């Protein structure tokens, strides 16, 4: 077989037993790879009702059929497990280099089961797999851990690991790879920590053989040329990464500001891409084989926030920055570095601190409880809170549970801006209606990465949609959800896939991606087949949610979005109009009026009926 190795590695951390298994070629085809294969195995092997932090939870690392191929941005993997933050599904994507190295071990999938009695790391060097003691790196941050494990294995190895936040089971803990890249959301790092699994180290030379190497080379050159033409013209993604976005969302009045109390931030120019570029940017940094190269190496050269690392990206600016009312860029950059080093999702970290700030200002929690004043805009307090969260110290214990549990514990659940208990990313759905429907129905809780219709509502890619309108949004959201399930299963990065691989015309939209997957695997997919497979993946994830207890009753938006109109900006006076979209969305998905996939739909997709 081509493209896929059709091999998975299973490591039982309780017994240290390592096994390898073949993947059924029909399953491979029907579920595409990456995120699709992962939900197939998770659904088949695990009771979705298990406690996510118990040994019964399964943690899957999954590459796709385009990972480690010449396809531009074929550098991704997915981390899939049951989320301790949401109680629903976690599927977090990351790039960098680790995913390519992981696939070069000769396995498409790593499945981790059980729980080690002592801290361990797993070294996979092709068929040599060892479960080794991690006692010497336990307690160390992600950067030190990466350096130490590379030094004791090989400079050719790549490392994915957790930091103190994951060890301490903070529900916003991320899995960091190559130091700066994060499978960030939904607490995947806490699952790793609960298994006493500090790191996974991958190396090998087993590039997947391709069905049509020459064809793959040609299509990759063509795609890279299109990216290159934009870069030459001065693509924002190359110059700024996503840090240019605060100016866009601020203009539209949907920039999360002070825990969504506002949609515009008066100091936005202090924390935007131009400020970052002028003050701290050293250079852009790519993930493996990416012609766009949107990463940023930055440095705060001196002062109290001195440091060097990557970021911040937009989502970090809109959470730890504007979300907390913070306008000190050096402090914000430092906060980003700390999250990377402690291994934390910046969105949930920032928006949880933002909720705490609002609760403090409203007098719902005291200075005594927190250990210091915690006003919006207090960047030093924000940094102090990050440390407390990572190390589970004092009030950090409350923060480490995320904003939903924090607000509920202190009697003000209406202040948590979450769906399925996960914090919103950087688009206020009161002024981008499609995003509201997306957040409410996303299988992983609020996330832009599960069908980012902001591409159309905000960025005009591939076509411009009016963000204030609800019309046509159910269809658009479904289309984007399936498209993202497809991309996440393929092994490509969405940034390049949406802009340079997908067609503007929705009817032939995934044609080039299907072609790439065929050149890789020889599966002979039609564009219709890959979209249907993506629908299968999405719907099976929904079935997982229903069995996990995070079903349709969670397809809701938080109080603020439905009942507190935006007070400022172009979307002033608006609320999220979920009820106008949800019934039609269920219908478009082939779900009944209560939000359950119908028997007919399950049969059409070849999914189990129970």
């Amino acid at each position, binding site marked *: 077989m081509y493209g896929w190795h059709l091999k998975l590695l299973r490591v039982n951390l309780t017994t240290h037993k390592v096994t390898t298994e073949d993947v059924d070629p029909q399953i491979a085809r029907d579920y595409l790879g990456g995120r699709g294969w992962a939900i197939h195995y998770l659904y088949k092997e695990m009771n979705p009702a298990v406690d996510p932090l118990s040994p019964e939870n399964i943690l899957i690392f999954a590459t796709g059929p385009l990972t480690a191929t010449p396809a531009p941005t074929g550098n991704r993997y997915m981390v899939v497990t049951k989320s301790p933050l949401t109680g629903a599904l976690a599927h977090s994507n990351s790039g960098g280099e680790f995913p390519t190295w992981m696939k070069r071990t000769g396995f498409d999938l790593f499945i981790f089961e059980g729980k080690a009695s002592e801290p361990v790391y797993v070294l996979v060097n092709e068929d040599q797999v060892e479960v080794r003691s991690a006692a010497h790196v336990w307690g160390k941050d992600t950067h030190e851990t990466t350096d130490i494990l590379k030094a004791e294995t090989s400079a050719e190895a790549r490392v994915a690991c957790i930091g103190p936040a994951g060890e301490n089971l903070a529900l916003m803990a991320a899995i960091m790879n190559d130091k700066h890249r994060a499978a960030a959301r939904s607490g995947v790092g806490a699952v790793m920590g609960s298994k006493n699994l500090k790191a996974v180290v991958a190396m090998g030379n087993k590039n997947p053989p391709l069905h049509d190497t020459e064809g793959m080379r040609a299509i990759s050159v063509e795609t890279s040329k299109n990216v290159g033409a*934009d870069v030459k013209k*001065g*693509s*924002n*993604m190359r*110059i*700024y*990464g*996503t840090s*240019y*976005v605060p*100016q*866009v969302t601020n*203009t*539209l*009045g949907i920039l999360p500001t002070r825990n969504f109390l506002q949609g515009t931030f008066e100091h936005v*120019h202090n924390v935007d*891409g*131009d400020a970052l570029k002028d003050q701290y940017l050293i250079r852009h940094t790519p993930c493996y084989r990416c012609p766009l190269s*949107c990463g940023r190496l930055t440095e705060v050269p001196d002062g109290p926030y001195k440091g060097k690392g990557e970021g911040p990206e*937009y*989502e970090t600016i809109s959470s730890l920055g504007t979300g907390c009312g913070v306008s000190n860029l050096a402090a914000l950059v430092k906060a980003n570095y700390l999250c990377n080093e402690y291994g934390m999702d910046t969105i949930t970290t920032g928006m949880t601190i933002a909720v705490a700030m609002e609760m403090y200002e409203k007098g719902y929690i005291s200075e005594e409880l927190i250990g210091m004043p915690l006003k919006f805009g207090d960047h030093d307090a924000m940094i102090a809170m990050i440390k407390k969260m990572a190390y589970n110290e004092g009030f950090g214990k409350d923060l480490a549970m995320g904003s939903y549990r924090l607000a509920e514990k202190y009697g003000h659940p209406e202040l948590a801006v979450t769906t399925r208990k996960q914090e919103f990313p*950087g*688009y206020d759905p009161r002024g981008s209606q499609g995003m509201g429907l997306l957040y409410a129905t996303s299988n992983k809780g609020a996330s*832009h990465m599960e069908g*980012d219709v*902001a*591409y159309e509502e*905000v*960025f*005009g*890619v591939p*076509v*411009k949609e*009016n*963000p*204030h309108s609800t019309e046509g949004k159910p269809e658009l959201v479904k289309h984007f959800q399936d498209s993202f399930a497809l991309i996440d299963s393929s092994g490509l990065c*969405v*940034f390049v896939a*949406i*802009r340079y691989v997908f067609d503007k015309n929705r009817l032939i939209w995934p044609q080039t991606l299907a072609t790439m997957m065929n050149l890789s695997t020889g599966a002979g997919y039609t564009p219709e087949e890959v979209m249907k497979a993506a629908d299968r993946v999405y719907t099976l994830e929904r079935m997982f949610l229903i069995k996990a207890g995070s079903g349709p009753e969670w397809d809701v938006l938080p109080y603020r979005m439905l009942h507190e109109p935006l007070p400022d*900006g*172009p*979307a002033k006076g608006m609320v999220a109009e979920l009820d106008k979209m949800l019934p039609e969305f269920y219908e478009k998905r082939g779900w009944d009026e209560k939000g359950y996939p119908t028997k007919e739909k399950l049969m059409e997709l070849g999914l189990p009926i129970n």
Partner: protein
Amino acid sequence: MIRIKMIANYRAVLPPEAKHGVIEIDVPDGTTVYEAISRFDIPLNDESVIVLNGLTVDMNTPLKEGDMVTAFSAIAGG
């Protein structure tokens, strides 16, 4: 007087007196969004997103005193 705001790479087309990507210009009564923005060297096709006071509008909408027309490059990101 109206305001023109350019975001990120589009700032390069503004004169040096622009502050945070915004300049003020005088335009004759009845000038449309399209006419105002076409004074600047940016692509006026689907490569750009152009909004009036942050809202999606018809490019032939006439401008009023104090209006702000913003343009940015249509590119995936975020």
